[in-house]
């Protein structure tokens, strides 16, 4: 090889964008168009899914069609611009928060370097401030006096197809994780700006399949996979068999049982996909150990709510299903499994959408008598809160040595940490079920936790590269504890995390497996009647027997 001159190295042999530097912008950000190519966008929603959703009462998903982001023509409705601007006006009137967020940003830049998409791409439009500016510039142009008079000089710009494409690109390069909002001195919730962008895009038929198909499945059969009641039941029963084979104790379960004290709702991924299956087995072992009077539901068979990633109406409808089922069965309250955005919807939006759930009772643990005042309005308790309370009162017999194969660290899920403050309970549980666990560095955990990079319906395989780079800040911290402390297990309390961190680790740190916290609880529980039937479980519930 010859000795390169830097200038030559910076030019492509094919005279394309510079070889070493890619395309370094010499233009203003507003003038750089979004370019869609395989791997940087999620597939658009299938026509029949959009049609189905649009046919449902209370939902509005117009302009179903075949289209591709790579095409110049996105087949938008003729008056798409009016639809968008009217949609924005309607939302500015409806949501005071949006109006404030549009007006109060002073562009201090505190959020700019806090986003995992920015940290993984170096793309300035992934700085939360600039992502918000994509909407704010249109707001300024059409809804503020300064913008109307001064236009671009006041930071305004006209709504064009190019702007719309940019919205699509960057509102789907945001996982609504809200890490940026932790650092915003004004408390601007950029996630809500992304939510508005996505809502507006749905008004002209621009959405992705990985979100709309699970949302339509949930609406139709009650869960993301579209599992029908008998299949859901079969899958759960398989897990009962598995638990019996492993531990020698067969958990009692029931479905749709009226008069049960508690309804248990968890993400459907827990009953059909690894590694969630082991977490579901953990739930059963836990409930069996304390003799809980609970029921599964084959209708409210999904904790996840992909409505959160589409629009308010869909979120409300999917959330309402859980409460309708709780009312129908006449339970006292709900225990929720390890899920992320289910809890976000519950803690941030449920009360004003479908609540308060006055037909239920304020949750009281039947084992310890603890009243969960934090759930006084939503009537739904997180499994980890419930477990931590059991441990605190000495109601569980735990043998940490059953997790001796585990050297764990804990990933705070964005939604449970930042949207509901579930920070200490999982750590308390970990303290009692494993001998050995370590924290990741301070600026990557608790409120400052880094997203898995694939939340908000971005956990689809066609954007795997995007997910790997946006998940790098998280993976980087996992790498650190792996190298320094030989960590081999990443525990978390979210179904999407369990699936997506598995892929993330497979790329960055294949030595580290991912598990749900309740899987570790299930491993450690000593059942009263387990006797000699319990197999030797060197790898806990994952042991092949």
């Amino acid at each position, binding site marked *: 090889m010859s000795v390169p001159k830097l200038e030559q190295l910076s030019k492509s042999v094919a005279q394309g964008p510079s070889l070493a530097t890619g395309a370094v912008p010499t233009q203003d950000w507003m003038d750089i168009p979004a370019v869609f190519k395989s791997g940087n966008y999620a597939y658009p929603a299938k026509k029949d899914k959009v049609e189905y959703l649009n046919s449902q009462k209370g939902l509005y998903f117009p302009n179903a069609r075949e289209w591709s982001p790579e095409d110049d023509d996105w087949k938008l409705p003729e008056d798409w611009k009016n639809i968008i601007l009217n949609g924005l006006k309607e939302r500015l009137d409806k949501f005071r928060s949006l109006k404030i967020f549009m007006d109060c940003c002073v562009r201090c830049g505190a959020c700019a370097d806090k986003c995992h998409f920015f940290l993984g791409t170096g793309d300035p439009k992934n700085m939360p401030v600039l992502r918000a500016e994509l909407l704010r510039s249109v707001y300024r142009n059409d809804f503020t006096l300064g913008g109307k008079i001064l236009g671009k000089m006041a930071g305004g710009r006209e709504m064009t197809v190019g702007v719309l494409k940019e919205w699509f690109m960057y509102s789907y390069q945001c996982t609504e994780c809200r890490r940026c909002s932790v650092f915003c001195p004004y408390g601007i919730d950029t996630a809500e700006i992304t939510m508005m962008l996505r809502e507006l895009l749905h008004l002209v038929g621009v959405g992705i399949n990985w979100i709309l198909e699970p949302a339509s499945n949930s609406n139709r059969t009650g869960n993301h996979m579209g599992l029908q009641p008998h299949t859901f039941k079969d899958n759960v029963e398989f897990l009962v068999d598995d638990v019996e084979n492993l531990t020698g104790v067969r958990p009692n379960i029931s479905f749709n049982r009226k008069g049960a004290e508690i309804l248990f709702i968890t993400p459907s991924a827990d009953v059909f996909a690894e590694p969630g299956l082991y977490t579901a087995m953990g739930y059963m072992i836990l409930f069996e150990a304390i003799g809980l009077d609970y029921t599964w539901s084959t209708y409210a068979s999904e904790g996840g709510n992909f409505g959160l990633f589409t629009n308010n109406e869909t979120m409300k409808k999917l959330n309402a299903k859980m409460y309708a089922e709780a009312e129908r069965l006449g339970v006292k309250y709900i225990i929720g499994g390890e899920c992320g955005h289910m809890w976000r919807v519950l803690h941030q939006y449920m009360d004003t959408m479908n609540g308060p759930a006055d037909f239920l009772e304020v949750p009281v643990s039947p084992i310890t008598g603890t009243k969960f005042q934090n759930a006084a309005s939503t009537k739904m308790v997180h499994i980890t809160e419930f477990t931590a309370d059991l441990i605190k009162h000495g109601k569980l017999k735990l043998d940490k040595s059953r997790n001796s194969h585990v050297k764990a660290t804990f990933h705070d899920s964005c939604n449970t940490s930042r949207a509901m403050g579930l920070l200490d309970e999982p750590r308390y549980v970990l303290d009692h079920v494993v001998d050995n666990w370590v924290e990741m560095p301070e600026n990557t955990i608790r409120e400052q936790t880094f997203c898995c990079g694939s939340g908000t319906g971005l956990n689809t395989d066609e954007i795997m590269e995007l997910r790997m780079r946006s998940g790098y800040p998280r993976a980087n911290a996992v790498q650190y504890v792996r190298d320094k402390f030989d960590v081999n297990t990443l525990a978390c309390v979210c179904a999407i995390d369990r699936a997506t961190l598995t892929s993330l680790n497979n*790329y960055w740190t294949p030595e580290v497996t991912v598990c749900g916290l309740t899987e570790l609880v299930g491993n450690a529980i000593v059942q009263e009647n387990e006797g000699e039937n319990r197999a030797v479980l060197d790898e806990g519930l994952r042991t092949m027997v």
Partner: protein
Amino acid sequence: MDLAEAFRNYRETIVGKWVDYTLSTYTSSDFFKREKDQFANPIGASVREALDSLFVMMSKGTDPVEFKGPVEKIIKIRAVQEFTPAQAVAPLNAVKHITREVLAADKERAVFVKDLYDFEFNVDLAVLAAFDIYMESRERLYKVRIAEIKSGSHILTDSKCPSKLLNEESQEFLKSV
């Protein structure tokens, strides 16, 4: 005074310029260059750490097998970013020119420029390793994608779900005719 000492004296300058050049390949790179915390700025810190240790190895003539560690740290990241394969590995080569430039600018050490053959050969080896690692990373990416598609599906395809049984029955039927 010899070349080894020149490498030692100029390590910080050369690596600094090399890191700067490499991070300039990102559209908005000021933060990547500035922030030193490895968790607040994972890409900037990884590139800095890896290029520094790679420079030391190449200038000391360490066994080229060892290059893999630092090269992997950088290329594994660049393999999942929006670079062409050539763009992903190109910055590694830049150290040749940077080193010549830095040494040439120092009158007392300009004489060592002619002795850079071994060092530059090591750079070539590092670039070749980068091609391998780039491909390994892409292959890993595809495997991760396949593993994800497969995960969970066995329950749906191999379970007692009636539609699956129906499918098996029809498969049996098809075999029999």
